[in-house]
Structures are given as C-alpha cells and as structure tokens.
C-alpha cells in the first residue's frame, strides 16, 4: 500500500510530457511564424524546452524512484547529513547551464530590441524621424497613421487606418508606437513581436514579414473593460499591392476631406 502512494506522483510528469508532445498536432502550438527574427525566437524557445524537459524528466524520475524504493520499508534510514562533492557538482553544473542560456539570448535580443543594433535601413528611418507608420493605441482601438505625399507623419495629409495595419512583405518595416490614454501592448503573435505602448513615450518597433496574409494584432496589456475587444489585423501584402492600397486610401481620404472642407465652408458662410 505504501508503495502505491509513490505512483500517485507518476501520471503528472507522463501527462505533462505527453501534452507537450501532442500539442503541435492538435494546433495547440506556437502560431505560424511569418517574420525574419521569429524563427530565431522559436529556436531559443525550443532550446530551453529541450533543456527543461531533460531536467524535468530526470528530477521527477529520481523523485518517484526514491518514493517507490524507500516507501515505509521499516528499515532505518541512512544517517547522512550532506555530501560536499555532490553539493558542489549539483551547484556548478546547473550554474553553467543557466549562464549559458542567459548569454545565448543576448544577440537575438539585441537585434530585435536594442536601438543601436537595429538593421541599417531601420536605424536610418528612425534617425530621420521618418518611420513607415505611427501606431497610436487608445481604449480600445489601434489608430494607424501612414505618411501622405509629404512623407511625414503628423501632417494633415496622413492616411489613417483603424485596426488594420498594412505592411509590405520582405521589407524592414518600422513603426513608432504611442498611447493616447492608458498602457496597451502591441502584440503580433505570428511575428513574435510584443511591445507595450506607454503614454508619454514613443517607442520604435521593427520587423520584417516573410509571408503574405492576414494575421492577429492583439492588445496584451490590460487596458480596461474592452481589453479583449482591442484586436486588429496585420495585413502583409506584396510591395505593389501595398503601394496601391496606400495610394487608393490617400485618394479616398482626399475626396472625403474635400467634402468636409466644402461642408465647413458652407457652414461658416451660413451665419453671415
């Protein structure tokens, strides 16, 4: 009976490993990667997953073996307090592995996030203060601003799109992230991109899409009751269709603006 108790602990590691093994087949896995650095993030994820699985199975295995082997054997336990070389080895080996894991992340992190290490064209656009787009997060929408004919963001001819972020494929894309009210987080699961939008700060984000298609844009930082609704789409398209879309949106907006201007004029004329 005593030995049976050790078996209570056995199903957990088995089922845990089994769940991870079957997850990709059921579609319960990392979203399809469609960015250049996404696969590097995934490789690091898989590396850690490998190390962790070995450590997990070994630890649980030893634990369950001890429980089974030494369960109520009615024999006096060993009278030992410690073992210096054992302590030394099981401190040094994990320490080495952990430091390795940490240092191994540096390059990928720098390339994705640290401004000084951004690709040259990205750095150039940022230094000229001419990002491809500005994303202004607000409760509970993504307001996306493309430069109009003047190539500048923040002028009257900007093209504004709500919740739909269009980007050209195979091009480094730079955006300036801001928030209008509370914290939000710009999360593109398929691109392995996440960056909080902070009111009072302007934060650069860059990525390069490698596949055409429409993917999720989530808000990943609690921003109020409508947080779950603050979803947008990222539409990756060929350079030509991206340019066409931008041109068309610009024209459309100009037409609407013209109408607005006319209305404004007639309104100001009425009282006179």
């Amino acid at each position: 009976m005593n030995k049976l108790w050790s078996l209570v602990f056995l199903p957990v590691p088995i089922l845990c490993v089994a769940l991870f093994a079957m997850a990709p087949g059921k579609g319960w896995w990392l979203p399809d990667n469609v960015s250049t650095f996404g696969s590097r993030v995934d490789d690091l994820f898989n590396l850690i997953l490998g190390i962790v699985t070995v450590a997990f199975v070994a630890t649980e295995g030893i634990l369950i073996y001890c429980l089974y082997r030494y369960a109520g054997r009615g024999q006096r336990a060993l009278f030992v307090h410690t073992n210096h070389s054992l302590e030394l080895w099981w401190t040094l080996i994990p320490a080495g592995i952990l430091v390795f894991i940490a240092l191994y992340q540096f390059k990928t992190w720098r390339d994705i996030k640290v401004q000084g290490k951004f690709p040259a064209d990205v750095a150039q656009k940022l230094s000229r203060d001419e990002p491809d787009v500005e994303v202004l997060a607000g409760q509970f929408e993504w307001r996306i601003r493309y430069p109009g004919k003047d190539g500048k963001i923040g002028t009257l001819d900007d093209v504004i799109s709500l919740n739909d972020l269009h980007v050209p494929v195979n091009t480094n894309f730079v955006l300036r992230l801001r928030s209008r009210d509370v914290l939000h987080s710009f999360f593109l699961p398929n691109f392995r991109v996440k960056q909080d939008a902070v009111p009072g700060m302007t934060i650069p984000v860059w990525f390069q899409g490698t596949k055409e298609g429409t993917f999720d844009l989530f808000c990943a930082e609690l921003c109020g009751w409508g947080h779950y609704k603050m979803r947008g789409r990222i539409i990756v398209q060929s350079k030509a269709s991206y340019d066409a879309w931008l041109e068309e949106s610009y024209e459309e907006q100009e037409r609407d603006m013209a109408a607005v201007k006319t209305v404004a004029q007639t309104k100001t004329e009425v009282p006179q």
Partner: protein
Amino acid sequence: MSNAALPGDLAGHHDHAAHDERGFLTTYIFSTDHKVIGIQFLFSTLIFMVLGGLLAMAVRWQLAFPWRDMPWVGPRMFSPTGGQISPEFYTMLFTMHASVMIFFVVIPMLAGAFGNFTIPLMIGAPDMAFPKLNMMSYWFMWPAFILMLCSFGVEGGAAAAGWTSYPPLSSVRSAAPGSLDGQTLWLLSLLFVGMSSLMGSINYITTIVNMRAPGMHFFRMPMTVWSLFITAILQAFALPVLTAALIMQTLDRVLGTSFFIPEGLVVQNISAGAGGGRALLWQHLFWFYSHPAVYIMILPAMGIVSDVIATFSRKPLFGYRPMVYSIAGIAGLGFIVWAHHMFVSGMDPTLAMGFMVATMLIALPSAVKTFNWLGTLWGADIKFTAAMLNAIAFVSMFVIGGLSGLFMAATPVDIHIHDTYFIVGHIHYVLFTGSIFAVFAGIYYWFPKMFGRTMNEFWGKVHFVVMFIAANVTFFPMHILGVGGMPRRYAAYESARLEPFHDLNVLITMGAFTLGVVQIVFFLNFVYSLFFGPRADRNPWHANTLEWTAPSPPPHGNFDVTPVVYRGPYEFASPEVPEDYLPQTRKLDGGGAAPGH
C-alpha cells in the same frame, strides 16, 4: 509515554487555559499570545481563501462558457441584466481574485499564521519579543479586510486594473469603472496589509535574534524558522518601497498629483490632470516590492516543506547549510531581478540583459534546494502521511514552476509569452501547487500542536489526491495556451486562430471547479477534527524540533521549563539512540548509549 526523556513532562496536561487568569476576550480575541494570533491569522486567511476561490471559479466560468448565464449565482447577482458576467465585471473578478489570494491569503497565511505560531515554539521562546505589536499586526488586517470587501459595493465596483494596478488605468478615474472609488479603497486596504506585515517582520527578526533558547545557535534552527527569518528581512526592506508607491498612487487619485501620469493625458475625453509624471515609475516601484514578494510567498513554504520532508523521511535533512545559503541567495538575488517583469514595458532594452542574467542565476538556489530534497528522500524510510504527501507534491510541482520560469527569464522568448497564459500557468504552479500545497502540509503537520487533536488521515489523503490531480488539470494546459499566444486578462477569445484552444479552456474550468469543490472535504475534516479529532500527545510525529516538547496545545508561555538545545533539528536515524529520532532537547551523556524506554 513516548516522551519520557523530555524535561519537565507533565503527563496529560491538556487544559491549556486552566492556569492563566485572563478573561475570554483577552484569551481568544484581543490576545497577545503568539499562538492565538497565529490561529486568528489562519482562520481569517482560510475564509478569504474561500472568497478568492469563488472569484476564480467565476473567471473560469466566463472563459469556458463565454457570455452564458452563470447558473444560480448569476440571476441573483445581476437580476436586472440577466445572469451573465459583463466584461467590466470580469476585469474586477480577476483583479480581486489575485489581490485577495496574494495579500489576504498566501502572505498572511505563511508569514502571519505559520510565522506567528511556529517561531517562538521552534526557537524555545515563551512568546514574541513584542506581543502587543504582534496583536496590532493582526488587527491591522481588519481595516484591510473591511475596505477590500466594501470596495465591491461602491459605485463602479471594485478595483479592476489587475493586481499589479498599473497606472494610468488605475490612477485615472475615467479610465475604468473600477478606477472610481474601488481603486482608492484597494490602495488603502493594501496600505494596512503592508503595515501589518511590517510590524510582523520587525517582530520576527527581533524574536529570532534575541529570544532563542540556550544552545539554539543560528545553525541549529529548523528550516521553517530560517525561511521565516529571511522572509522577514526581505519584507522589512522591500515593503517601504511598496508603501511609498501606494501612497503616491493614492495622492495621484485624491489630491491631483501626477507621479505616474504623463503630460497632456486625456482618457475618455476627460483630462487626467497636470501631468509630468512617468507611468513606468510605478512599475519599477511596484515590482521592487512585488518581486521579492514572490519569494515572500515561497520561502516560508520551502521551510515548512523541508521540516515535513525530514520528519516523514525519518532521515536528516540533506545539505542543511546549503539549504540555508540557498534561501539567503534567493533573498539577495530577489532584489535585483524585478525588471524581468518589464522586458517589453518600454524600459531600456539594454538594461533587460543584466536582469536576464540575474534572473537565470536565481534559478540556481532553487535547483540546489530541489536536489537537497531529493537527497533527503534518498535512502529514507518514507511515511506517507497527509502532510508528507502535500510536501512531496510541493517538490514535484515546484519543479514545473521553476523550470517554466526559465522561458520568461530569456528575454527573446519572453517577447512572445509575456502577458499570455504561460505566465498565468507559471505563477499558479509556484503559488498554488507550490505555496498552497505547503500550507496544507503545514496545517496537517501542526494541527495537533495547534489544537491538541489530530486531523483524519484518510480524508486528508482523499483531499490530497483529488486536489493534486485537479490542480494539474487546471494549471498545466495554461502553458500550452500561452505558447499558442493567448493573451491573459481577456474576457473572451474571439479570434479564429484561438478557436482550437477552446477545448482546453473547458478542461481547465472543469479542473478549477473540482479544485474548489474538493476543499469541502478539507473544511469538514478541519472542523470535525477541531472538536472531535483524536487527542494528540506532545509529539505525535516523533519529530525533533522544540515545539514538540511543549504540551499540545501549548499553554500561555509555551514551555514547562525553558528548553536547552543540544543539537540540530534533524537528527533522525541517529546511531546514538535506539529510536529513529533524537529531539533537540535530549541530553546524551558523553555520546554513550542513551537510556532507552
């Protein structure tokens, strides 16, 4: 009697209140006795655990059956609007679930209940160094309880900015319904909790430094005392920062200061005030406390588990000193890892690399502790009591919680899993299957000492097995959801890509409900044993530490005579005596054969 060797053994002395002349009120309500205060903390936190658990079940209902009427409860709570959970109510549910569980259950349960009850008994002191301060630390919890409960009833409802309460969502009144008066009450409530903890920690440090029994050197203290000692130091240094941050946010809300509100902020078309502050400042201040708080919630659990495992392995704790150094290492490193919660917050990304290295290193002492627990079990003579099963579950599940932490510590990987269900799974593996299993281990273990009666082992094991399975069904699939990119704190998942994950959400909810319902078994066992459990003698588990030399339950003043300590706390299976345990107080003459009995 099995305790013939104990000094001044008073056979059959059970009538714990008989000898002192204090009235009912000063004995049981406004008591300065550390044991009564510990039990008061225990009862209060168990009640709040029920509340926190119900809030969690409501969260799970919504996630498995989005926008469906809650059966029975729903119509009674929201009769005019039907029985479904509204999105704003959902944000309150998870905010209050976490706030209640962290600040009213896990911290006061480990530090307040177990800290108070065990420290003087385990170091051989008659009481705490400052008994009145101790009483005050408990009674400071009551304004906190009342303010937090009242906040559900104010206009706009309870706080809804998450337990992390990030401004501007929390500090600007127009940002969320819960950011009306609910958030102010939340802040005031936490200020009281903080002051209560601060008083407790000063008291613990003083007591442990000054009031150890003769012969109780630092390195003869049980791990429970060591862990509570280091936790108290951690709290004493970290809490002032949280207190300052809470006051700053309160001022932002009520006096119109702008510590955390940037210039020109307009929320829902209402100006948020003068501005000029920094939203990120709060995150730094908050995590400077709240990351150490994660260790405040796990270190005492590790201490309790070490004592329970050694006792029921009938074997000395393996690597006592490395265990102590690991706790100190976790506490020290705990102060320089806070920004790992902020890798994608907008903080300078270069800074993140330093915090990543420190965070990876903090996994090391945890690993060392796990190996030493395994070392303790190796060659042991294991007794599977309810307490022991819960302690082993802690070790087995803490491994998962610790290893999943490595994914988040790695900055590039954290980009993807940050603020997803992976984090939710991780924290619940540490705090639920970690701390809460240790709490149950501690309750089963010290119940005889607390109340002079023993809990029913059979029902204790039933409770354990169901809880162990249900906890894993609930929390393990969350990792998968997070890998899939499912963000946390969403009231519903309406993206086509997240559709396949719905089955897992239903499974998790079934686990969570089982977890809630099985606590009824524990509750009945606890209450029944309180009144009708079999009487316990002084040392029912044949353990070595000092609390087992006092009567069960110990009278006011604890010990019949001041105990004298001759050895460390874990001398099980010692060849010097025929029994397999050797209490710390037992004097052996010249190392020769001890008198048997």
